[in-house]
């Protein structure tokens, strides 16, 4: 079972084989947990995201299509959707919107990569980190709010009292800068 591909394991999950889900858990829980912790910044919520992600894999028979990309990317999408839902839910309960730039630097301080994770993450991680150095503070902040904190373009426009067209344009420029430097990093 340990040597099965992600696609094979998902097929077995759809056939209700618990062991397949456990292998997928072992293989990807760090990815899911790390992503969630980066967004929610507290262990209890990160645990809840992990619970919801793997429950969704099991209960929906999840529709992973290997032709549409890597399993890890697909899992990131599911994890982000669930994380953003959770953040928005908690935000509604708090009933206030606080867009602090301070949050940007609050990365988790524990780092303990296994070789497998390093293989999975290292090159991509180095490339994106390298590209991020070319962003201005406001561009980083925009990505933080949009990608990690789950704010919508409209909410950001409203909060910053700028037209949504301006925010969209800033986002476009931000992604273009990242794209340019990701390509450069790839060639190096």
């Amino acid at each position, binding site marked *: 079972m340990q040597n099965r591909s992600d696609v094979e394991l998902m097929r077995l999950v759809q056939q209700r084989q618990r062991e397949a889900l456990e292998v997928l858990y072992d293989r990807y829980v760090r990815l899911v947990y*790390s992503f969630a912790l980066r967004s929610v910044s507290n262990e209890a919520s990160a645990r809840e995201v*992990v*619970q919801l992600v*793997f429950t969704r894999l099991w*209960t929906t028979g999840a529709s992973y299509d290997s032709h549409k990309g890597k399993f890890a990317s697909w899992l*990131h999408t599911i994890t982000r959707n669930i994380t953003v839902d959770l953040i928005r839910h908690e935000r509604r309960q708090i009933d206030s919107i606080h867009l602090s730039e301070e949050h940007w630097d609050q990365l988790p301080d524990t780092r303990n*990569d296994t070789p497998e994770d390093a293989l999975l993450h290292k090159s991509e991680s180095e490339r994106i980190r390298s590209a991020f150095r070319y962003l201005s503070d406001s561009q980083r902040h925009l990505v933080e709010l949009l990608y990690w904190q789950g704010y919508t373009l409209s909410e950001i426009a409203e909060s910053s009292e700028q037209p949504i067209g301006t925010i969209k344009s800033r986002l476009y420029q931000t992604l273009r800068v990242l794209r340019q430097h990701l390509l450069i990093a790839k060639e190096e």
Partner: protein
Amino acid sequence: MHPNNEQRLCDHLTEYITDQLNEMDRLRYQRHLESCASCRQEVFELQEVWESMPYITDMVDPPLDLKEQVMNEIFSEPQREFKPFSIDNSARRSFWFYSISTAVILSIIIGTIWNYQLTEERQQIVQSQMGQIDQPSTIEKLFPLSTQTDITSTNAYGVACIVNQGDHSELVVYVYNAKNNQGAEAYQVWLLHNSKRTNAGTFQVGDDGVGVLTYRMNQEANFDTIGITLEPDSKGTTPRGQKIFGNSEQITWN
């Protein structure tokens, strides 16, 4: 489509990349991509950037007890599949569970209808059909379905709705936590109006307890009662098996 409309769709690029379009606009934009090479290229390039974002995270070891908690939760309480958040107030739990489940079911139904519509349109590749997507499917009536028997799980429930597709109506039925049918058995849907009964087709329920049926409506669109029976096979023209689901009320959607 008018060039101005196409231009407006080009403006949705960033919302599409960041997954902020509603289902209808997302499908519209995907149609637009088929004819706009420039947007296609932009989406390809920027989506790659967007999908690189997760890799900026540092990898963190999850707590050691998390796996046991996750697996226990999944394998000891199968009915929790649609529960998205922990809600401590148990009195509110059933309300939330029901509300969120209904929302999930509706989104699945609407997605199914739109996807079906989109697939049909793609297959035909007829320019004159471009306007169809501008007239979204609408749900006209909704029928919550509850179980009528103890032979299936007490958590079994479902929903049926009539969806207006413009030139015709579709009946869409979803059931959850239903007993899976054995051998040739089939669930059969019956529509009743003024004591007249119509056979709306059969569907299967697998091990996951989920069953789905879509049925193109003709004159039966005015039905007021829906019943689902478990039949010995899918060939019957009158009910022979036990009634499993039925509606107790009807909600007019618009």
